[in-house]
C-alpha cells in the first residue's frame, strides 16, 4: 500500500493538478490539500476520516476524482504486466517452434535452448555495444542504410546461434557478427563520402587496396 501511495503521489497528482485547475480554484484547494487527501486515501486506516472538513459534495467529487485516476493507474500497471507476460510467451514459443521444426525423428533432443540469465545479459551487452558504435554515422545514413542491414545481420546471427550451442561456437559466432557489423560500418561510411574525398583518399593507398576499395 505504501508503494501504491507513493506512485499515486508521483504520477497522479500532476495529472489532477493539470486537468482540474478550474475545480481546484473553485473549491479553493491547494496542492498541499491534494497531497494530504492522497495520503489519507492511500492509507486504509484513515479511510473513515477521508475528506473530513470538506462539504459532502466536495468530498464526493474529490473521492470520485481520486478513484478515477487510481483506476487508470491500475489499468496501466495491469496492461504493462500483460505485455510483459505476452512477450515472455512469444519468446518461449519462438524457441519451442524452432526446436519442433528442426527436430529430426529418431534423434535425441539436446535442448538447453532456454538460455540462462547470464547468457541473455551478455547477448544484450553485445547488441548494445554494436548499436552504440554505429552512432558514429550521421542519422540519415544510419536510418536509411545501416539499420536495416544491421537488422538482417542480427537475424542471421541469431539463427546461427540457435544451431550452435557450445560456448566456443557461440563466441566465434559473436566475433564473426562483430566483424561483419564493423565491415558494414566501414562500407556505410565509405558510401557516405563524396567522390572527391574518396579519390583523394585512394590516391594515398597502394594499388592492392585501391582495387579492393573499387578505386
Amino acid at each position: 500500500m505504501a508503494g501504491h501511495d507513493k506512485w499515486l503521489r508521483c504520477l497522479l497528482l500532476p495529472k489532477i493538478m493539470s486537468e482540474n485547475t478550474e475545480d481546484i480554484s473553485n473549491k479553493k484547494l491547494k496542492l498541499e490539500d491534494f497531497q494530504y487527501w492522497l495520503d489519507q486515501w492511500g492509507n486504509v486506516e484513515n479511510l473513515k476520516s477521508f475528506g473530513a472538513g470538506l462539504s459532502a459534495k466536495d468530498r464526493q467529487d474529490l473521492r470520485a476524482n481520486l478513484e478515477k485516476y487510481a483506476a487508470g493507474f491500475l489499468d496501466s500497471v495491469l496492461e504493462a504486466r500483460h505485455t510483459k507476460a505476452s512477450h515472455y510467451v512469444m519468446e518461449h514459443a519462438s524457441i519451442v517452434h524452432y526446436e519442433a521444426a528442426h527436430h529430426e525423428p529418431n534423434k535425441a533432443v539436446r535442448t538447453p535452448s532456454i538460455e540462462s540469465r547470464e547468457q541473455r545479459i551478455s547477448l544484450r551487452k553485445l547488441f548494445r555495444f554494436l548499436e552504440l558504435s554505429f552512432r558514429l554515422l550521421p542519422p540519415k545514413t544510419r536510418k536509411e542504410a545501416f539499420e536495416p542491414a544491421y537488422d538482417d545481420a542480427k537475424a542471421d546471427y541469431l539463427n546461427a546461434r540457435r544451431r550452435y550451442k557450445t560456448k566456443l561456437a557461440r563466441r566465434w559466432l559473436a566475433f564473426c557478427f562483430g566483424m561483419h557489423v564493423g565491415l558494414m560500418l566501414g562500407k556505410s561510411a565509405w558510401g557516405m563520402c563524396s567522390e572527391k574525398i574518396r579519390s583523394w583518399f585512394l590516391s594515398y593507398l597502394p594499388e592492392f587496396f585501391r582495387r579492393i576499395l573499387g578505386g
Partner: protein
Amino acid sequence: MKSDERHNLPELSHLQFAVLEVLGTAQKSGKDLRQGLSEHGLKKSGPAFYQMMARLEEAKFVEGWYSQVIIDGQIIKERQYKITGAGIRALNQTKQFYHGRTRQMAALPAFA
C-alpha cells in the same frame, strides 16, 4: 538527341529496374529482395542495397515499412517493401522504352 526523345528517357536506372522487376507486385522483405537480385548476378552490400531502396522510396516508386519478428527471443525489425502505382508505371515505361529501341535496332540493315 531531340528534346522530345530526351523527355521519354526511362526514369529508372538499370539497377532500379532490376529491383522493381524482382519485387514484382508482391510484398517482399529486404533480405528476400537482396537474395533475388544476387540470383540475377547483382550483388550489393547490405548498406548499399538499403541506400538504393531509400532512394526508390524517396522517388515514391516503392513503399517501405518495418515488421517485427521474434528470433530466439529477440525482437528483430525487418524492412518490408511493396511497389507503388508510380513504380509500376515507371517499370512499364522503362520496358516500353527498351522494347521500342530493340525494334528500331532490329529494323536496321546491319541487324536484319
